């Protein structure tokens, strides 16, 4: 035994050959980053409580790196809040939940690979999550082929529950056509007849644009022009400068950092002074408000969730959800944002899975058919599980319908203008399961 | 002052120098003759730490050069005028000189003095001081390369084929410079193919063949008996 530890051969290896150490350090750092990004098995501290009960393995797909990382991280907060609550409350059918989180790096091909890994290698019982629509669309066939239920947490592209719908995939929250149906009467009657639609030029933006064009026209308004902006454009000013002419309102369809870019550009160029500014609620998520400051004042949007305590959201259920989400979000974001729809829909998606698994006495993937039948047509009431409000998953297309909130931004805060009941957002089903 | 003892060197896998031993004393001009490809340039590169040394020892004023980083040699007093001249082509003449002048510890007055000195030797460089190095003629580039080495105030200059490809008028000028440097007390290790020039400038001469020193004599001896030169260089 050497007298001092760094006389040991291994210590010399590590400390005295400086170059190797640094290279090793780099290799270790990147491996560690990779490992964190790939899969993290969330250990269950409550294991003992459940004794020998075998946990349900639930796969979660989220972008934890790349362009969608910020949103994916927020979305994961909702999932984990729900799982903690379920595990503390005795689990599902007496069994705890173990999450298998897969980072798909914001890329569709990686998403597909990670989905396959979840289903084939990790052998998850069911799956949840998804954030970027193009990734959701790429992953859906994997779940269909492997007959595994996927409860989507965020993806909004219309076709997920219409032309590309799958018997194994559920969307327990709203989609653009329902929002367009709910929002367009207000847009045309209260804000203006003539609209210019600016949208993020990819799957979700395009399908949402089409939904609004249809509904605005149906309500007696008109869309006089559209502008698509490519995903990830740092400065949108050159693209929005073309927006001119005579119309009443500018309707924006953006989310994440793109929403901040877009809003900054149109504000800086004086377009928000000339035209009314409305759009998808994703533009004014609470994580964007501090960055946008006065630039977003007066924006009118529609969203399934806004972080306010005004009626009808002044329920004990919502307060409980809200308070806990604030605490959990503070842990991942020192600026302490208020909860947004990504936290809400992932939280509720997990609770839908819970109810479905209880109702179908789900044991494992062999009971997938029973689980699907249990979820189809499921109606839930406003409760601790569903703080956003009542909702129902339609049997024909696995699309949920729920109430929507029309809001504006005042003093950098959400202000509720009108609540649209879920029956006023109905869109006929357009799905044929294979 | 500069001593090479049994130096071996490799280029990749080929063994280029086989136990080369050379000594240059302070203020001495030493010639290194030999045909193309016998390892003369490699010997200089081995001193500059640019050829992979695999054996032997190189010391300068008693100090082993093994541990000295390539950029530390100039500070010790070793300057290199490479065969290809290696002028910084996009830098002006003055900027080329500044790469040697702007070292720490050189006062403004000394810089001006050094600049004046090299301009006195090479008036054409003063004339062209704001011209890019790459636009100079071959002879002018050679002058600049030597001037650039001179501003380092070296104790020894490793001068690699300074007259290669130059017109006779230029060759004479280079010859003068070598003499002048010698008068100033700067040692020179002169690699050349030009025998008369070497025998004129150098005090002692080493003759290399196949990566090794084959003959060593004073210039006076060689001048008296040119057979050796014929044997090794075929001239």
């Amino acid at each position, binding site marked *: 035994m050497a007298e001092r530890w760094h006389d040991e051969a291994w210590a010399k290896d590590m400390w005295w050959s400086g170059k190797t150490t640094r290279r090793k350090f780099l290799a270790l750092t990147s491996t560690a980053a990779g490992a964190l990004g790939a899969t993290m098995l969330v250990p269950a501290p409550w294991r003992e409580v459940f004794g020998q009960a075998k946990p349900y393995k639930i796969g979660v797909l989220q972008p934890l790196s790349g362009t969608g990382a*910020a949103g994916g991280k927020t979305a994961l907060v909702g999932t984990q809040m729900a799982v903690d609550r379920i595990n503390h409350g005795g689990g599902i059918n007496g069994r705890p939940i173990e999450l298998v989180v897969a980072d798909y790096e914001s890329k569709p091909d990686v998403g597909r690979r990670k989905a396959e890994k979840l289903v084939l290698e990790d052998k998850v019982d069911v799956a949840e999550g998804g954030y970027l629509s193009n990734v959701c669309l790429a992953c859906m066939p994997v779940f269909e082929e492997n007959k595994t239920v996927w409860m989507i947490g965020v993806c909004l592209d219309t076709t997920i529950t219409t032309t590309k719908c799958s018997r194994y995939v559920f969307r327990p929250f709203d989609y653009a056509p329902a929002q367009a149906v709910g929002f367009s009467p207000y847009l045309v009657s209260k804000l203006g007849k003539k609209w210019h639609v600016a949208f993020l030029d990819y799957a979700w933006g395009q399908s949402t644009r089409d939904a609004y064009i249809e509904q605005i026209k149906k309500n007696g308004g008109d869309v006089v022009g559209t502008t698509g902006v490519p995903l990830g454009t740092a400065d949108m000013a050159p693209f929005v400068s073309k927006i001119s002419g005579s119309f009443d309102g500018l309707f924006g369809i953006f989310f994440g950092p793109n929403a901040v870019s877009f809003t900054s550009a149109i504000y800086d160029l004086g377009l928000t002074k000339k035209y009314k500014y409305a759009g998808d609620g994703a533009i004014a998520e609470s994580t964007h408000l501090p960055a946008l400051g006065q630039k977003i004042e007066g924006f009118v949007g529609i969203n399934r969730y806004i972080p306010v305590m005004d009626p009808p959201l002044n329920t004990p259920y919502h307060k409980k959800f809200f308070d806990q989400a604030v605490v959990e979000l503070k842990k991942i974001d020192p600026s302490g944002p208020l909860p947004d729809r990504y936290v809400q829909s992932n939280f509720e998606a997990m609770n839908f899975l819970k109810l479905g698994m209880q109702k179908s006495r789900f044991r494992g993937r062999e009971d997938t058919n029973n689980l699907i039948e249990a979820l189809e047509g499921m109606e839930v009431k406003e409760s601790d599980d569903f703080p956003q409000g009542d909702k129902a998953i339609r049997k024909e297309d696995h699309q949920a319908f729920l109430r929507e909130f029309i809001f504006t931004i005042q003093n950098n805060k959400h202000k509720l203008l009108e609540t649209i009941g879920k029956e006023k957002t109905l869109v006929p089903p357009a799905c044929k399961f294979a | 002052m500069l001593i090479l003892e049994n130096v071996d060197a490799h280029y990749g896998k080929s063994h280029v120098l086989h136990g080369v031993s050379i000594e240059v004393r302070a203020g001495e001009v030493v010639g290194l003759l030999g045909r193309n490809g016998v390892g003369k340039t490699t010997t200089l590169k081995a001193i500059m730490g640019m050829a992979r040394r695999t054996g032997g020892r190189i010391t300068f004023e008693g100090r082993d050069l093994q541990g000295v980083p390539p950029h530390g040699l100039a500070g010790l007093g070793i*300057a290199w005028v490479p065969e290809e001249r290696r002028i910084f082509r996009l830098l002006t003449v003055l900027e080329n000189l500044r790469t040697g002048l702007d070292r720490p510890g050189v006062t403004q007055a000394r810089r001006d003095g050094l600049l004046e000195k090299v301009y006195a030797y090479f008036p054409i460089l003063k004339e062209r001081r704001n011209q890019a190095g790459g636009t100079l003629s071959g002879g002018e580039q050679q002058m600049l390369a030597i001037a650039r080495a001179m501003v380092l105030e070296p104790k020894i200059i490793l001068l690699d084929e300074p007259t290669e490809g130059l017109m006779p008028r230029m060759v004479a000028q280079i010859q003068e410079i070598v003499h002048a440097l010698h008068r100033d007390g700067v040692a020179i290790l002169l690699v050349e193919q030009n025998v008369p020039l070497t025998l004129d400038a150098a005090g002692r001469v080493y003759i290399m063949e196949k990566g090794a020193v084959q003959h060593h004599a004073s210039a006076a001896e060689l001048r008296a008996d040119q057979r050796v030169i014929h044997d090794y260089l075929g001239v």
Partner: protein
Amino acid sequence: MDQILIQTLHGLVNGMVLAMVASGLTLIFGIMDIVNFAHGDLLMLGAFVGASIVGVTGNYWLALVVAALVIAILGALLQATTLRPLIGRDPLTTILATFGVSLVIQKYALWQWGPSVRQISEPVRGNFTLFHLQYPWYRIATAILAGLIIAGLWLFLKYGKYGIWIRATTQDRVMAQAMGIPVPLVYTAVFAIGSAMAAASGVLFGPFAGVTQTMGFDFTLRAFIVVVVGGMGNLGGSILASIFVSLLESYAAIVVSPAQAVIVSFVVLVLTMLFRPTGLFVPTPK
């Protein structure tokens, strides 16, 4: 006509910011032959540091200077610890190393600052009327400031003692060493300067569109394009190419849809690679 003037202004403003990003990148490539994939992430990190300082002190100019300094130090450390040991190895290893650094920085930023978008409020308020638009003075100020910083860099490289060292090392690293120039130190210093340029661009661009973990990506991509189009390692070429490509994209936005307009820079890239592989503003050697 209105559109052409407006887009010229946009092209110049964006071109100047891009030129700042690209000048750091091309400086590093020119001297070390390192393709720094983490450049955009250093920009992002600089913007976050800047946003934090603006948040605490409210002083934009202080944020600009401190962010540049902090990221310069980080860049120097990064070069000394991860890239210096790789000098002389297969270029692929440095590419992988900088790629790894890029991932680490992105993860770090998300962990440190969270998913919220940060704001850097503009130091210059107000705007002027430009046809149907209001044009913010800040954008003009940004272009001028970027121009001044680039001019400062250029003067430093042209006349400064260390500037001459840097240029000499770029041209002939072996001869520079023989002249006594401490080349390893020059490498580290250049990496620090390049990083500082990236950070300063991040703080300058911050008020345009907020500060996010992903803001560096678009810049890395576009900066690479202009560095190739301008001639790898050629500072003047990169600056011209930045303005050229930005103007072209802006003009393209008049006639085609934005999605097609952003392809313009790729088209320029491909054409340059095909017909003038040494860069658009450098004559191809015969």
